[in-house]
Each structure stands twice: as structure tokens, then as C-alpha cells.
């Protein structure tokens, strides 16, 4: 994790200074606001008065990691007239994400590892290198949250840049990385030293919060059952029958990274040059066309093979060993989008109980 060696520091930020702190941020600020009908969304440079307070929201519909890995982004533009000319989008501005939740911070650390493993994914890492996360630890988990089961929160002990804990009229500010330290060092006038008892209170609140979760997902059992291949084909078939291959779980999952690459070309202009661009957009391993080869062969020809693929990626021990974490941070977003109640906790629970909800004995 970036700057893990940074000195761990704790401070206090009075809430009345928060707006000034947000105003002091250079570059872009992303923060949670409500959309027209009340959904939470991380907007870029929203009016500061619209930014949600910790107690006002659980989390956003789409993870803020989408600010760094958006549903569609242009990789480069080109102009074709004789020799092709390639032009890259301009470098991203520095970005500070305020109010990001612990699960999404954990996801961001995974994505940084993934996008820089072996090859460095330029578009993502250019943004990541300029991004600072100011997360707010969760004291009011939502009804579909299960981050404690997947090392995704509700309080972070590592991986955060700056972690805030809401104590009514003050925030406890914890610095967890070089970037966090850089952010804080430049703004010492906003902070006060944190009294020792506040740290103790934070630890107590973190403990108490664990009691507030309404669901659990026994990831360890899921990993063991799946890796040891002790799940019956029948059970996989029944689970896959409830998947409609909408792609929603992958699109809202902050750990899912699959993308497709597509070229677009406009008709030639007056000067005879055709312009176009290459873009990438989110893709999903549940789609039938996802793994189809040019010659038409599909190594995962049926829904159950694609369904298994998703959960092998998320839960196989071999992935876990390589990625350093299970493929889930417990944000619960897949529960909201799933048409067939075969989201992550539902599947893990099925693997564990070897029984699927909704199946009747006939």
C-alpha cells in the first residue's frame, strides 16, 4: 500500500472548518450528493453546500472508483489521412475524493495493485497517482453492507490516505499514507491535536459498529468450498438459472476491471481526413459474447460456465493468493442490482449451506 511506512498520525477537525478545508483543495473535488430522486452519487466539483454529511448517506449507487475507471473512456483519438496521427487525452487534474467509504478505499487499493501489475495501465494509474482519498468511516452500515466479512471496513486500519470519524461536532482525522500526509501537512491550520481518549473512543465505536451489520457473508467458507470443488453441478445450475446476464453485478462491483475496446470512425471531413477514437468500456464475464473468439468458438458457451467463472474469480483461493485479498469488499451493491437474488452473499451462503433459497422440495 502506498506509503505504508508513513507515520501514523491522528488529529481533530472541527466540523465548522470542513467547508474551508474543502475549499482549500486544488484540482477536482469529488463528493457525495443526492440526485434528482435521492440516489447518492459522487459528483465532480459539486456545490459545497450540497455535499452530504456522514449521517445522510450509506454509499453511492456507482462506486467512486468509477471516477478513475469510468464506464467509457477514450484511450486515444486518431486522424487518418495518409499516415495516422494519434493524440492522447490531456493529463488528468489532481482529484480528491471526499466522503468515500472504507469499502471503496479498499477497492481502490486493489485496483492500483491490479492496474500496475506486470504492465501499468496508463489511463487508470495517471489518475490514481493524482488522487487523494478522504474517507469517512462507517458508523451506520446499510441493510446490504457486509464489509467486515471481506476486510473492507467499516473502519480502515490500513490503506486509507485520510480517514475521518464523525463525532458530532468534530471529526477524528487519521493519516494513513504519504499522500494523506502530504494533504494534511499543507493544511495544518485546519487541524488540532487529537486527545488520546478520542482514539480510544474511535476504537470503541469501531467495535460497536460491527454489531450493527444486518447480514454476513462467510467468505472463508465460500473460498474453501469453491476451491476444493465441493459444490455440486446441480447447485451451480440452479444458481445460474437465476442469473439473467445483465452485467449489473460487474458494473457496480468496485473490484471488477473487465473492459472491452472499441474503435469509432467518423466519415471524412472536407480535408479528406477521417477522425475517430479508440475507447474502452466496461465489460462483463457473464455476457455470452465476452469470451467468444474471432473464429466463433466460445470457451464458455453456456450461462452456468460464465456464472461459475464470475465466482471463481471472486472466491478462488488461487486468485486470493495472487491478489492479496478475496474479490469482494462487502459494499453490497450487487444485492441492489441483482434480478435473481444470486448476489455475492446469496451465492456464498448457498455454497456454505449447499442449499439455495427459493428451491422447493417437490
Amino acid at each position, binding site marked *: *500500500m*502506498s*506509503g505504508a511506512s508513513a507515520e501514523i498520525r491522528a488529529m481533530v477537525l472541527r466540523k465548522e472548518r470542513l467547508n474551508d478545508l474543502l475549499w482549500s483543495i486544488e484540482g477536482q473535488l469529488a463528493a457525495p450528493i443526492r440526485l434528482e430522486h435521492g440516489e447518492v452519487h459522487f459528483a465532480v466539483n459539486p456545490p459545497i453546500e450540497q455535499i452530504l454529511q456522514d449521517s445522510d448517506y450509506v454509499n453511492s449507487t456507482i462506486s467512486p472508483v468509477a471516477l478513475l475507471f469510468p464506464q467509457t473512456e477514450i*484511450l*486515444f483519438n*486518431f486522424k*487518418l489521412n495518409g*499516415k*495516422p496521427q*494519434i493524440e*492522447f487525452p490531456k*493529463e488528468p487534474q489532481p482529484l480528491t475524493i471526499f466522503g468515500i467509504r472504507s469499502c471503496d478505499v479498499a477497492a481502490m487499493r486493489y485496483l*492500483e*495493485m*491490479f*492496474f*500496475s*501489475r*506486470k*504492465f*501499468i*495501465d*496508463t*489511463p487508470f*494509474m*495517471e489518475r*490514481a*497517482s493524482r488522487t487523494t482519498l478522504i474517507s469517512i468511516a462507517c458508523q451506520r452500515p446499510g441493510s446490504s453492507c457486509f464489509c467486515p466479512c471481506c476486510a473492507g471496513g467499516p473502519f480502515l486500519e490500513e490503506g486509507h490516505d485520510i480517514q475521518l470519524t464523525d463525532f458530532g461536532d468534530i471529526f477524528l482525522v487519521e493519516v494513513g499514507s*504519504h499522500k494523506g500526509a502530504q494533504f494534511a501537512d499543507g493544511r495544518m491550520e485546519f487541524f488540532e491535536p487529537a486527545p488520546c481518549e478520542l482514539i480510544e473512543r474511535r476504537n470503541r465505536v469501531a467495535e460497536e459498529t460491527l454489531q450493527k451489520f444486518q447480514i454476513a457473508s462467510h467468505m472463508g467458507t465460500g473460498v474453501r468450498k469453491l476451491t476444493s*470443488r465441493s459444490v455440486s453441478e446441480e447447485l451451480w445450475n440452479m444458481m445460474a438459472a437465476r442469473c439473467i446476464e445483465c452485467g449489473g453485478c460487474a458494473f457496480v462491483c468496485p473490484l471488477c*476491471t*473487465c*473492459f*472491452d*475496446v*472499441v*474503435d469509432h*470512425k467518423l466519415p471524412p471531413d472536407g480535408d479528406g481526413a*477521417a477522425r*475517430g477514437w*479508440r475507447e*474502452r468500456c466496461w*465489460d462483463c*464475464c457473464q455476457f455470452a459474447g*465476452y*469470451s*467468444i*473468439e*474471432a*473464429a*466463433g*468458438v466460445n*470457451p464458455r458457451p453456456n450461462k452456468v460456465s460464465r456464472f*461459475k467463472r464470475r465466482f*471463481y*474469480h471472486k472466491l*478462488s483461493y*488461487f*486468485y486470493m493468493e*495472487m491478489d492479496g485479498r478475496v474479490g469482494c469488499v462487502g459494499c453490497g451493491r450487487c444485492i441492489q442490482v441483482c434480478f435473481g437474488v444470486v448476489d455475492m452473499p446469496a451465492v456464498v451462503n448457498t455454497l456454505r449451506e449447499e442449499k439455495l433459497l427459493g428451491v422447493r422440495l417437490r
Partner: protein
Amino acid sequence: MAMEALQAACNGKHLYEPVLARIVEITDETPDVKTFTLELECGAIEYRPGQFAEVSVFGVGEAPFGISSSPTWTKRTGYIQVTVRAVGRVTGALHQLNVGDYVGVRAPLGNGFPVERAEGKRVIIVGGGIGLPPLRSLLNYMLDNRERFGKITLLYGARTPADRVYKRELDEWERRDDLEYLDTVDIADEEWQRLGKRVGVVTTLFPIIDEQSPIDPPNTIAFICGPPIMIHFVIIELEKRNVPDENIISTLERHMKCGVGKCGHCAIGHKYVCTDGPVFSWAEMKELEWMCAEPTV
């Protein structure tokens, strides 16, 4: 995550930036297969046999092809070659291009064949149809470094005589005395029959080498490339002759898009064919099949 990686992301070359390459020659191999000779704008590149290139037709898309020229040839000429069968949108568009047109290239990608492991060993190369290009790279590399390898056998099977690629080179290889060359087709034409050449699937060539030059299992390494069904049966033949699993080397075919282990399309279990492969030993493939509970070939 290492700070260096973050830094490198900002200063290095864009991961998805293709190098411009001019088409200097187009060779028709079969009615739907062409070999493109490309001059890269960045100059000659170094690569290993079995590595691949992502070739772009701007405005249409990008597709992966095994590099069919050998590194030794590239060193001499400065060019690289890819052999393309027109099956999809990108390959179709490539076939429409002419000498002098530009494409984009990202190469070399993938792991390539473990040629060092073949040094001093008896080498058996088995190709099927359009699976020959990466093996041609390997074979020409070995022939250019002939002294480092033991006896080399090439077995080539195609559906019909017309489907055979690199026909001129095949004739040259057949004439060489430092290479054992055997070929066959599934369906012969008149010319083929007149010449009395072999008919049958590629595995029917194994009994012939059993007679001509029997395999010494621990000291033999085999390289296979072709359609999955062919790979499957060739592996069975090699297993029958006790060639160790780690000496059976094959390439896996998957839908590779980004070529750099990010887009996810080519993953088998936790391996990415584009970065962990496309070359795998049978030992690795078997382990992978167990790990991900899905077949590799």
C-alpha cells in the same frame, strides 16, 4: 502499491499506444490467409518465438496475432511478419489493406516459447492449419541456431493442400537434411494424390516417426499449435510415448483484447493467456484445469 509504478505511469509510454507500422509486403498464403510484412516506425524490435503482436486497423479495431517471423530474421531485415486469416471484422479489414498502408502494432506481448529449455534436446514441432505461424517463428529461429538443438522434427497437418500456409518454405524445409519434415492433409486433391503424399490427421504421423526416429522421452520437447481438438489428440500421442508433461508445450487460444492482462477476456482461472501465456506446458495446463474447473483445450 509501489510509488515507482505510479511514477512510471505518468512518465512512460501509454500502455495502449500502438506503434505505427507500414505494410511493406503482402503475401497470399491461401485464399483467406495473408502474411503481412511490417516495418515498425520505432525500428526493429526484439522478441521471442511464440510472442504475439496486437495489430490495429484504426477505426476498426485491434486483434492479436502470433508473430510469424523469427527474431533472427527480424534482426537481419528490421521487419516483422504476421499471418492473418480473414475471419472477423479486424482481420477482414486487414485483408483490404495494401502495401504502403499503415497499421498500429503493440509488440512483443506474451511469454513466448521456452527455447532455452529445448537446447540440446530432440525437438518435435506439431502444427495444424493456421496454427503454423508461431511455430514457423520458432523453427526458423532454431534453424538459424541449428547447433544448439538436437534432432528437429516438424509435423504439419492441414485440412486440404490449399489450406497449407508458407508453401514455398514448406518445400525448402522438406529438402533440408538437418530437419525431419512430415506433412499430411485431411482431404487430398488430385495433385496431392498424384504425388502420393500422406492423407490423414496429423496424429497419423506419429507411427512414422516411431519407425524413423523413435522418441527418447525425457530428452524430447514438443511444441504444438493448432486447433484445440488437434492439440488435444497430439497431447494424447505424446503422453503415450511418455514425453513428460512439462516438455509438452502448446499455445492456448482465447479472446485476447488488451494483450496486457487488464481487460480480462482471455483469463482461464487466475491466469491470463496474454501475459501468463499464450505458451503453456501441458503440466501447467493440467494444473490450471484443476484450479479453475474448466477445460483449457
